């Protein structure tokens, strides 16, 4: 391959990586945690237990009764029976037209108890795992869709970084197993390469599918060419593409057909436990429709639907699988990205791959700084180097401290405090900003060691704090086989041990540096022949 081309790719890889590495690190940390979003939700609301199992018929009957009471005039109901990892409760959602023209549509949702149709008692107010999950594609504090747009741009640069990284690589097979320990910058580069090469399929999949989420942003003229600038039409794009366009309201009332027999009809075709959710369009209207949706590995794009008349219960249409190859490709990639289909082992593999991706970004940023570190004592340290070094420690360790503080805040903020959900996340960002300030003010390795100790203390203290503030501690959850709660505490403990070992290793390195005889740059220059510099 042309040397100049490879060199230019290396340049692009280095600088696009450096400019976006800290925000990419945020996206990877929160995205990786997002693979355990419902488990984190559960830990952050210890008062709320998962609902006991209920039959599909009872769930649909209860959901319809609840929505009939709460939102009888809605355009759309959505009932999602409890079951599996993602639905600890019977979930309901409704949507209706705005009361005034030009206003936004109204939405509502709620978890419901079967068979009483009463809301599930709410736990403490918290952003939970969903806040971290949302942060990886919307960021936080930014108005409107700005966070989404920014993430789209950063994702594109991540993709550029991956492609240029592959091109810049000379010996990809050799890097499969090469890690040279304790070799300074060479070790950091080895670590970066090893993490990148070992997770390359995951990185390519996660980044490319991430771009697919923002495809309308990157290629707006495809949709605009078809729909023009009519936003109402654009809102119906997905329904039209999926072939589930909403019916027109007739204006005359008619009772809604019982939902349970329709779901049973679908289960008779698809098999037991195959109904994921039931959507009712225009409930109470003569043109009502009921879409019984099949459980699918393809996430929101759906794997099949049976469309019934909402008054007579007659089967109108039936579709199994994705409607066309384009949606098949998109659905596969998006399903791979979200990993909703993953069982416990595969979910942990996703989590580990995410961690390695996070490590890849971190080691890349560290390598940039280590490579440019002044080699002599007393040599002038540039602002750029100092800034990157401070940001590295303040983000690579500091963000983890921030996330752990988020969990601490969940247990320490008073349950009755109205704005506690907001303050949980404020605490996270305050901790992160303080860590960045600390990283910029303290010398390199000392800052790393101190922040690693703080992280270790916070992570190791988290199971203890949980034991002191709730009755769902490890001594209770492990014997009970509650591996969601226990798994969270044990994972925090594992991260604490890793942070402690890192702090000890950095401490040894600092001690070795202090004991090593050093030569000041001015003294060295004085010993050298005239015209030769030590710096």
């Amino acid at each position: 391959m042309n040397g100049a081309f490879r060199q230019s790719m290396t340049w692009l890889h280095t600088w696009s990586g450096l400019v976006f590495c800290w925000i990419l690190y945020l996206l990877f940390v929160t995205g990786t945690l997002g693979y355990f979003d419902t488990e984190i939700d559960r830990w952050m609301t210890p008062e709320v237990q998962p609902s006991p199992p209920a039959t599909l018929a009872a769930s649909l009957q209860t959901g319809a009764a609840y929505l009939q009471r709460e939102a009888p005039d809605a355009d759309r109901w959505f009932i999602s029976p409890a079951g599996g990892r993602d639905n600890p409760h019977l979930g309901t959602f409704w949507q209706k037209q705005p009361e005034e023209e030009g206003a936004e549509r109204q939405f509502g949702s709620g978890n419901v108890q079967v068979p009483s149709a009463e809301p599930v008692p709410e736990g403490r107010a918290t952003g939970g795992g969903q806040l971290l999950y949302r942060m990886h594609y919307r960021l936080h504090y930014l108005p409107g869709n700005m966070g989404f747009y920014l993430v789209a741009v950063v994702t594109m640069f991540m993709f550029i970084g991956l492609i240029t990284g592959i091109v810049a690589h000379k010996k990809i097979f050799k890097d499969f197993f090469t890690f040279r320990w304790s070799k300074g910058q060479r070790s950091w580069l080895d670590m970066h390469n090893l993490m990148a090469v070992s997770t390359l399929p995951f990185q390519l999949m996660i980044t490319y599918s991430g771009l697919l989420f923002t495809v309308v942003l990157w290629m707006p003229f495809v949709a605009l060419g078809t729909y023009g600038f009519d936003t109402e039409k654009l809102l119906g794009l997905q329904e039209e593409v999926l072939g589930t366009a909403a019916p027109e309201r007739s204006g005359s009332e008619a009772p809604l057909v019982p939902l349970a027999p329709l779901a049973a009809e679908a289960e008779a075709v698809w098999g037991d436990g195959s109904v994921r959710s039931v959507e009712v369009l225009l409930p109470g209207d003569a043109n009502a429709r009921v879409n019984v949706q099949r459980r699918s590995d393809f996430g929101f794009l759906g794997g099949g639907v049976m469309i019934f008349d909402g008054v007579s219960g007659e089967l109108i249409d039936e579709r199994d699988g994705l409607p066309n190859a384009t949606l098949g490709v998109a659905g596969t990639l998006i399903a791979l990205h979200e990993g909703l289909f993953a069982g416990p082992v595969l979910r942990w593999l996703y989590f580990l791959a995410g961690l390695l991706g996070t490590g890849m970004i971190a080691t890349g940023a560290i390598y940039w700084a280590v490579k440019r570190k002044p080699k002599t004592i007393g040599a002038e340290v540039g602002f750029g180097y100092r800034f990157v070094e401070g940001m590295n420690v303040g983000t690579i360790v500091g963000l983890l401290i921030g996330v752990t503080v988020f969990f601490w805040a969940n247990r320490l903020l008073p349950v009755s405090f109205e704005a506690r959900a907001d303050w949980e996340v404020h605490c996270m960002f305050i901790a992160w900003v303080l860590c960045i300030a600390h990283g910029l003010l303290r010398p390199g390795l000392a800052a790393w060691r101190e922040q690693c100790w703080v992280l270790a203390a916070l992570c190791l203290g988290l199971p203890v704090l949980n034991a002191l503030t709730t009755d769902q501690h490890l001594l209770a959850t492990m014997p009970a086989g509650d591996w969601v709660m226990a798994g969270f505490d044990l994972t925090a403990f594992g991260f604490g041990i890793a942070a402690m070992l890192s702090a000890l290793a950095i401490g040894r390195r600092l001690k070795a540096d202090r004991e090593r005889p050093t030569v000041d740059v001015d003294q060295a220059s004085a010993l050298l022949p005239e015209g030769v510099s030590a710096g």
Partner: protein
Amino acid sequence: MAMTITILITLVGTALLCFAMPRHFALLLKRSLTRAQSHVLRAAGFVVLLIAAIYASTTMGVGYGLTAFTGVFTVTMISCAFLVTYLRGGSGA
């Protein structure tokens, strides 16, 4: 069970690829690796990995199995790399 077997087969394949590296081979078997041996080990490694992928996709379904295999391959690869570094005693040979 299918996942456990997939992990074991993938581990064998990854170890064979690891052995195909001259320095790793010398470290683990205390003798140098010939070019022919390297080719054979590498080919055997890829064949075993292919078997692991086929096994995973037939027992867990094509989509799920291949996704699981990729994840397992990532973790076994990085484990082998760190394990060999550990066996070297951090000498960075």
